[in-house]
């Protein structure tokens, strides 16, 4: 049995993809994270959702801004570490009243094996709050779809920057013995 648990498509990732469809999301950008692999795969296979792999997460903020100006809704997928890379570029969204949606897989909060993940893991939520985001959190698999759907609606209805922090416990422990 392959124990690479963070690589399989989870039901809550399918729920997120469904929420994207319901909100007419046309593009998803990302620096890949293991916790997002299933969702990235679903979006890549979906002909109505364009995807962009980024060299750094802040590129996705600018990409989302350009897509919005051009009439396309988009979402950014990233790990908590990536939030730190984005901070100044949020000025684009704040100044221009451009909606942003970040789905952030959390590291550094449960059985973390890599201590370098902990600084941004601990502060990603607070950093986003400081930058004016509406920050939501999903801790249980059953709640993810509804929370992401609410986040998308809030972002696009009210032209807000919204982030959903996806608990590290949703992914489970990474098996570092392999």
């Amino acid at each position, binding site marked *: 049995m392959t124990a690479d648990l963070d690589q399989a498509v989870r039901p809550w990732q399918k729920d997120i993809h469904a929420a994207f469809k319901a909100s007419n999301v046309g593009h998803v950008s990302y620096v890949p994270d293991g916790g997002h692999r299933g969702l990235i795969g679903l979006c890549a296979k979906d002909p109505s959702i364009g995807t962009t792999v980024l060299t750094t997460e802040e*590129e996705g903020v600018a990409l989302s*801004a*350009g*897509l919005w100006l051009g009439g396309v809704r988009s979402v950014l997928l990233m790990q908590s570490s990536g939030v730190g890379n984005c901070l100044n570029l949020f000025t684009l969204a704040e100044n221009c009243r451009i909606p942003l949606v970040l789905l952030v897989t959390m590291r550094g909060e449960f059985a973390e094996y890599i201590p370098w993940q902990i600084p941004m893991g601990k502060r990603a939520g607070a950093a986003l709050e400081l930058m004016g985001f509406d920050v939501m959190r999903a801790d249980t698999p059953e709640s993810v779809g509804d929370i992401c759907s609410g986040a998308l609606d809030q972002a696009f209805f009210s032209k807000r920057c919204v982030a959903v922090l996806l608990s590290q416990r949703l992914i489970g422990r990474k098996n570092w013995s392999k």
Partner: protein
Amino acid sequence: MSKLLERRSVVAQLLKGRNETLVVAGLGSPIYDVFAAGDNDLNFYDWGAMGSAAMVGLGLALAQPSRPVVVFTGDGEMLMGLGAFSTIAQHRPPNLSIVILDNEQYAETGMQQTATGFGTDLAAVARACGLEGAATFNDAGDMEGLRERVHACRGTLVAVLKIEPGDQPRTVPERDGAVIAERFIKALQV
């Protein structure tokens, strides 16, 4: 001494006959140059978020595939977002042009030398990232040909224009991002 281009006349020439073209101006001098060529609701003045201009252009180009998108930015701003060349190369949208006004200086902050003054060749970087045909220009005689290509949607274009250093009259457009974005979106929807 190598020829250099005059920035205001070059930008004005490249924007002649812009018709359907959407324009992004990166922070600093390119904003003043684009505004000096004539304000337009379809100019997105990107006053901050240094490093973002090319990626904003990519988003626009993907969202509006039938319209030419031109990004005017400076060497300093482009250097801060160099990865964008690689990210753009995965899509290679035919309707996207990046025009880099390269005076090898950070003009806003006291004319400090940028990396292009120390040897970085941005066109070579773009080619190495997968954007074929990226080229450097310093001859005014090439500008009419470039102008035609920039509005033609025939392939992703990166043009590095070697510009005379120095100050220009500071012609300053709207700075309120909400106003800039709103009028842009409204003009696009017409």
